[in-house]
């Protein structure tokens, strides 16, 4: 286990060290102590390593992550795992706004609640939230899956494209062009797999969820839909 004291050695040294791991390395386990809410911790990592952050992080922790598994033993600030490409990010606590924004791949697990705009503009990432999510989540979501064991706030899935949204609890309101959709066997199977990967299979069953997706009415502009914009 490689240990890095962020308070002592600084963010630049941390990220430069992690970036140098590209390709094959036998230093596959890392522990970061004293994060103290610093921004951009472990941003831009591109190596199959396991990183544990002992504490809470600021903005953009694990931004653009590739391959790495990053565990945050605390809460995460805005934009955690933004534009993630692959790998896994697991947050033991809560996540602030824009968690997983524009993520293109990999898995983001939030064991607490996520704030507004969770999964905004997501492009292929899978997100599993054990708690609730805030308003405008999955805004303009393009693809990927968002699983929420708790409740969703206002305007879920506004203007979304082909992302699949699964919510177990209540949805305060649906955004423009977002509708409830039929849960078919393939969705239940997908959900079972996502719950398992998201370390939530003991907490909820696929049958307890509802599926939401795009009505596809705003895909090509029509003046008679103008009130929806």
């Amino acid at each position, binding site marked *: 286990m490689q240990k890095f004291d962020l308070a002592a050695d600084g963010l630049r040294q941390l*990220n430069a060290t992690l970036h140098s791991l590209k390709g094959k390395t036998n230093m596959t386990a890392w522990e970061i102590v004293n994060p103290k809410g610093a921004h951009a911790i472990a941003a*831009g990592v591109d190596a199959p390593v396991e990183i544990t952050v002992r504490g809470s992080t600021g903005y*953009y922790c694990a*931004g653009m992550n590739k391959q790495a598994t990053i565990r945050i033993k605390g809460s995460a600030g805005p934009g955690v795992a933004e*534009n993630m*490409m692959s790998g896994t990010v697991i947050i033991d606590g809560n996540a602030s706004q824009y968690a997983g924004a*524009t993520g293109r791949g990999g898995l983001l697990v939030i064991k607490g609640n996520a704030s507004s705009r969770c999964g905004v503009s997501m492009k292929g990432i899978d997100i599993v939230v054990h708690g609730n999510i805030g308003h405008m989540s999955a805004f303009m979501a393009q693809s990927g899956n968002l699983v929420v064991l708790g409740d969703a706030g206002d305007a879920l899935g506004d*203007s979304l494209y082909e992302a699949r949204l699964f919510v177990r609890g209540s949805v305060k309101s649906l955004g423009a062009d977002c509708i409830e959709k039929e849960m078919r066997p393939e969705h239940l199977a997908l959900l079972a797999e996502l719950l398992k990967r998201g370390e939530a299979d003991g907490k909820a069953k696929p049958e307890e969820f509802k599926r939401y997706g795009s009505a596809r009415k705003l895909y090509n502009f029509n003046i008679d839909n103008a009130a929806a914009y």
Partner: protein
Amino acid sequence: MSDFPHTPPRYSATFTPAVNAEIRRAAASGIYDIRGGGTKRHLPHFDDLLFLGASISRYPLEGYREKCATDVWLGTRFAKKPIHLDIPVTIAGMSFGALSGPAKEALGRGASEAGTSTTTGDGGMTEEERGHSRTLVYQYLPSRYGMNPDDLRRADAIEVVVGQGAKPGGGGMLLGQKISDRVAMMRNLPKGIDQRSACRHPDWTGPDDLEIKIMELREITDWEKPIYVKVGGARPYYDTALAVKAGADVVVLDGMQGGTAATQDVFIEHVGMPILACIPLAVKALQDLGMHRKVQLIVSGGIRTGADVAKAMALGADAVAIGTAALIALGDNDPKLEAEYQKLQTTADAYDDWHEGKDPAGITTQDPELFKRFDPVLGGRRLKNYLKVMTLEAQTIARACGKNHLHNLEPEDLCSLTIEAAAMAGVPLAGTSWIPGRNAGY
């Protein structure tokens, strides 16, 4: 019947035939007019400024003997690897999607041969432009189409796009007819649907967040790349100051003459300020912060000639960017294609339906049959020629003003033909020492 003559028909200056035609078009179609390009209205512009040239009080440089340098460094504030360009005329961001792959290749070829940079757009980085661009600026846009850390790292600079001159405050739009399989794949969206690009970034809001976002991008790229911040000409003093505060290496300022691939005509014509009015405010912000020439300023929007380049630089810009002019150099709107423009119910030099993807010149299209017409090698050569001519023109003017580098041009080299331009540019009305709004009392 009276013998008195009839009152002759008189057109309204308010309800002109063009205005009435637009009312009828809106009534018939139920949709606002969408088009490409920049504003078409008459605006105070660089044409309203003149250089004074040398005289007894200052002497010129010999045209063919004394050097007038044109190079520019960009990104010297924080980046470990700042960019050095041979000429201060860069190619502005234009998306793959809006433009064809061969057109992007031609931009890269022409810019590289002329010693300058080209810029990606709202659609990700293509091999055509990365492969053919010696210096490539990678745009970081609200849509994040195609965004990934590998392309960030193989870019030479990163441009965080907050806005653009054609539509400050507006997002993007690529209509379904231009969404080919390749464009759809690069943007992770279904083929054939209208692609809306958000107007705000998904994971930051305001200058304090922007500072953290820029820091993240620097961390991901190990502080190597210059980071530009691009803004539309809305509130240039404050936008420039806030971009500097947020940590930008370079501010890119785009006036309302700057083009777009597709936006509502009402937006293009009624939002934003002309570049002439924007430059002095941005320069003042940099000067007030002690950052003029330390954070570089690139300006764009209606740059057409070496005279425009020289005037923008005399007002304090470090470099300029061209978009529409580059497309015309490639062959866009060429009267040789008039018969085809007529079929589209338009005419050469007025064609602006770039969003429809039917461009007879094969530039603003994703139709393989149309873009086969465009030769990227020839297009690149034409762009290189044009960039060289602009540079020579700017040098000619600078030498006449006694300057051995384009960056030595200054507002004192200029006068204005109109009161409006004098007020906006902050240079005296020709024949007077009057700068409206500055030295009150005249």
